Structures are given as C-alpha cells and as structure tokens.
C-alpha cells in the first residue's frame, strides 16, 4: 500500500464526510433466506454481503467428523460482479485465507461440543465489495448463526481500523484501504475478547494500540446494531429465550 497524492482529509473530515472514529452506515436484516437454517444480510458502507448457516447437519465426507464436537466450516466467496474488474468464479488464495481466519473468529464462541459428529456450515457471499468485506462477512455470519439457533457463548462483532495520512481511522473505505498506510481488522466478543486480528501496513507499537482500541470501539457499535436486528426479528415471538441467550 502506497501513499499517493490523495488528500484523505478535508476540514478534519474524511473523503465521505466521516470523522476519523466514525463507522460507515450499517444496515442488518435477519432471516432473509428461506432455505437456510439462519441467514443475515448486511450493508456496511458500499459492502453488500449475505450470510447463511446450515446445521448442525451430517458431515460429508465422513472422515472429517469429530467424535466430540461439531466441526465448523466457513466459506467466504465473492460474486464475480462484486468488484471493479470481474473476478473469476471460485476461491482464490485470498478467499482461502479469509475463510480460515473468519472461521477462527467465530469458532471460539460456538458451543461445538453440543453437536458431536456434525458440521455447522457458514456460507458468506460478497455481492458488492467496498473494503471491509471480511468484517462485514463475520458480522453477518454471527447474526446468521444466532438466527439458526446455534448455541453461542456470545455474539461476535468485527470492525477494522486503518492508518491514512498518519491518522488512525475507523472502518476504512475503498480509497483508504487501497492507498492507506495500514489496515487492522479485528473481531471480538462484547467482552472484548479478540477472536480475529490481522494487520498489514506499518504501525508503531503505539499506533497499533490506538488502532486496536478504535477497532474495538467500532465493533462495540456494530454489536448494538446486530443485537437490535435480532431483537427486532424475535421480539414478537412468545419465547425469545435462545435469542436472549445469544446476545446476553
């Protein structure tokens, strides 16, 4: 990532008018798919991402079964038309890595021991990409897990911080991601336990701390939106017990 002649700030505000510590608009809808056991659609800025959860269900092929717990699979996939230049269908090296770290971001809160020998499948489709698809995907996937009634220790919320023009900013958009100095996505529980942390670019140890703290603040804001989306869906239900359990 190179700095270029781009002016990232004008009158103290970012290219899209945000303050340094401000999220892009977030919209979350729960239960948007009929076939999936749980699903969620999210918009974070220009990102449009949909997540579905299937399971717990039987594992194929069998030899992947674990005797004492459910395995979790996570498939991050970009639609061919989701990016500026058409992407060839199918997974590439980037999507394999993102699938791995996203799965590892969610697995710590899933009570996999409840479902030995089974699988919980999480499928994330990026329909439109605008920097931050992995965090959007994790946010949608966590809500979809709750919507599917998968028992979880807590919600997971994800957000990135970045560095542009030597300033730490929250939730970088495309231009800030492409030409910025660093990107640091995290995912965490409402308690602040970190389940995903990646970073690339260049940060001093002090900047690193400030970026982590800003990303955590963003994740907490997103958590409120996730919670509200689930409450909205389940508020009419007579027994919202498992939802409460999820978002405690």
């Amino acid at each position, binding site marked *: 990532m190179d700095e270029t002649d781009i002016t990232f700030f004008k009158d103290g505000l970012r290219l899209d008018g945000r303050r340094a510590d401000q999220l892009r608009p977030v919209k979350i809808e729960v239960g948007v*798919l*009929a*076939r*999936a056991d749980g*699903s969620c659609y999210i918009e974070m800025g*220009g990102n*449009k991402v*949909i*997540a*579905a959860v*299937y399971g717990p*269900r039987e594992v194929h092929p069998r030899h992947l079964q674990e005797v004492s717990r459910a395995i979790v699979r996570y*498939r991050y*996939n970009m*639609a*061919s*038309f*989701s*990016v*500026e*230049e*058409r992407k060839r*269908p*199918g997974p590439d090296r980037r999507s394999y890595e993102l699938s791995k770290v996203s799965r590892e971001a969610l697995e710590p809160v899933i009570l996999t021991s409840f479902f030995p020998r089974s699988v919980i*499948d999480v*499928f*994330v*489709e990026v*329909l*439109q*990409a605008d920097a931050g698809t992995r965090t959007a995907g994790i946010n949608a996937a966590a809500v979809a897990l709750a919507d599917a009634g998968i028992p979880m220790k807590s919600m997971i919320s994800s957000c990135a911080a970045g560095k542009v023009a030597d300033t730490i900013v929250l939730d970088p958009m495309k231009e800030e991601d492409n030409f910025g100095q660093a990107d640091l996505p995290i995912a965490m529980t409402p308690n602040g336990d970190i389940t995903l942390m990646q970073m690339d670019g260049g940060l001093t140890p002090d900047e690193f701390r400030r970026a982590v703290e800003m990303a955590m603040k963003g994740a907490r804001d997103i958590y409120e939106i996730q919670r509200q989306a689930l409450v909205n869906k389940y508020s009419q239900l007579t027994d919202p017990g498992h939802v409460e359990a999820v978002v405690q």
Partner: protein
Amino acid sequence: MTNVISEIKKDFIYNLLLKGERADGRTFDQYREISIQRDVIRKAEGSALVKLGSSQVLVGVKMQPGEPFPDSPNRGVIITNAELVPLASPSFEPGPPNEVGIELARLVDRGVRESKAVDLEALCIVPGKQVWIVFIDVHILDDCGNILDAASLGAISALLCTKVPASKFGLGEDYILPIRDLPIATSAIEFNDVLMFDPGVDEEAIANTKLTIISTIEGNICGTQKSGTGMLKPEQVYRIIDIACEKAKEIREKFLEA
C-alpha cells in the same frame, strides 16, 4: 429427521395434486409473485435481483474489451456462468459448477443467444481484434424452486439496464446496451398427467419431468429443454408450449416492457 419431514411434505403435495390442488393455493398455470429490482450492484454494468416467490436470484453483467473468437471476428462475445453457491440450498455443494449448474447456465445463455437479444455485431470495437465481452453471472441466492425461470428473467432484466462502460476503457462515451428481444423461460413439471408451471421446490421433488420453453417477443420458440428422468407425450409438449408462450407474454409485458 429432515428426510422424514420431506417425505411427509411430498405425500401432502402428492395428495393435493390428486385432488387438483397446489399446496400454496395456486392454479396449475399460475406463477408465484414476481419482483425485479434492477441496478442493485453498483460495481456491475447491469444487475437485477429477481424474486420468484421465495426463490431469489441475482444476476450481474460485467463488460470488458477482449479478443473475438477466430470464427466470428466481428462479433462480441457472451459468456454466461452460474454459481449454485451452497448458501442457496442444502443440496448445493461448494466447488466448480456441476451438471445442474452447467445446464442452467447454458440454458440462460441459450435464451439470450438464440433470441438474438444482444446485437453481437454492435459489440465489435476493432474488427478481428477487439470486441466487447459480456459476462452474465448468475448467482443463485435462495432455491425455493424454478430457479431457471428466475435466472433467465434476471439475465434479460440485467441486460436491459446494462451500460456499456466505454469511457472506462477510453472507447468513447458510455451507452445503454441495445437489446432487441426479450426471451422468457417458462417451465412446467408433469405429474400424473397434470402440468404445473413455476414449480416450487417440493413440487420439483415429487415430479421427475420438467420442460422449459424459452420464447421471444414474436411468440416464437428459441429454446426448449426437457430435464428429469420421466417422459412426455407429444400432446403434453404442445400443451406446455401453448401455455408457456402465453405466460411468457404476460411476464414480459408486466415486468420488462413496463
């Protein structure tokens, strides 16, 4: 457990059919509610989200300059791909398209191609050297039955709002892709000599024969495909064609020519 439920469902639908009814109260030639949202994906040159009852299909069109095929040096190229991603159905699996996905993509492609909806000659930039490549990417989001009709409708809807990104490639000003025909695919399943249009996913599960008819503005047929492991009498074929062309006309007038 899932299988038991699905067996019960099948029996239920089967018994209804014997009484001449459908589970959701539709008549045999009635489509579920259709909605089309266009231009939903800003990064695509054209896009459409089609809902057919609970089935959801998103189609994106991307265009870029490229080389023509040697045997048609003055014509643009259409490449149609379908992703039956595992998000859309418990029966879809990750991996490269299987024969179901390939058949679906090829049928969507056939409708666009054989109806000559896109003027391929108009997509020539430099004869023999450079033409527009039109990628039609079908992304199935929720398979609640009859995704082929939805995908086909999504493809023509997305093409209708596709802007040729000429300026992006220094090839003049952007312009709307000219569309000359509006092919519509309509599918029916046969079961116990009953013909049912726009089958839901449970109806598809009990019938084993489907016939798809793709028809044009003129009321001509530009593509058909029988699928499934059953048989059809010629009279059944002709009956499906008659209704299919009528249904296609209704859908075309209501959603594409409005």
